[in-house]
């Protein structure tokens, strides 16, 4: 039996890690795993002061729900909760939170990793990096591909997650 998706959301509000864990908590679970993506103070050697996140909200909500459902199929029982924040974030603030609960530990790592990796490839969200010297730039991202082409390997592709 696959797991349940209990929460997916694009939000302008601060992400509460405890609430994410509570959303997937169940006495039938022997394992819970929480991933938090946070705003880092440097990028490619440049000091960063903060980050703006923009989304195509309607599509991002749909895509996040689809990704969470895929993660749920990787669980036997268990639950998935994912929230991605948009707007202006300060250093150290949580931009994405992914909580997985499951009867056993192995699938929670697999499902959690699936969610963050697919977010990087498919979620229509963009980062505007603000540097300490007052400059700003859009973070170079991953080109979106038509769905039928997804999963096909492209020569020379790879890189950082």
């Amino acid at each position, binding site marked *: 039996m696959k797991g349940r998706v209990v929460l997916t959301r694009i939000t302008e509000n601060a992400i509460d890690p405890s609430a994410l864990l509570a959303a997937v908590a169940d006495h039938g679970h022997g394992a819970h795993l929480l991933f938090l*993506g946070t705003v880092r103070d440097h990028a490619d050697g440049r000091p960063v002061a903060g980050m703006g*996140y*923009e*989304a*195509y*909200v*309607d*599509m*991002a909500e*749909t*895509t996040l729900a689809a990704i969470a459902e895929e993660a749920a199929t990787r669980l036997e029982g268990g639950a998935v909760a994912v929230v*991605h924040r948009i707007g202006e974030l300060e250093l150290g603030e949580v*931009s*994405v939170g992914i909580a997985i609960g499951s009867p056993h530990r192995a699938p929670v790592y697999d499902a959690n990793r699936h969610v*963050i990796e697919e*977010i*990087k*490839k*498919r*979620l*229509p*969200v*963009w*980062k*505007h990096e603000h540097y300490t010297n007052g400059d700003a730039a*859009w*973070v*170079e*991202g*991953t*080109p*979106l*591909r*038509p*769905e*039928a*082409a997804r999963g096909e390997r492209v020569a020379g592709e790879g890189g950082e997650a």
Partner: protein
Amino acid sequence: MKTDPVHIDPALADAVPPDRMQIDVLFFASYRELAGARRRSVMLPAGASAGDLVHALRALGDGLVALPEGAAVVVNQRVVRPDHSIAPDDEVALLPPVAGG
């Protein structure tokens, strides 16, 4: 994101010839900056493809000349191939490479 309400001026709608269609296109992030707006309208031949749309936008002559040929075209929230035909009622968006997380 807040989107502006769509106002369809009946006089303008009547002005679109039957062999043409007016498409409102949504832009995000760096492409929004190139377009100078979240939403732009472009006139295309009826049955035009996603690839035709990108060419037409680049030909508008403003900041969109810098729109990459390979820009992702999203129709009704799905990424489409360049040969995908666009219909007048489609929700169409141009998306830069994504960087969530």
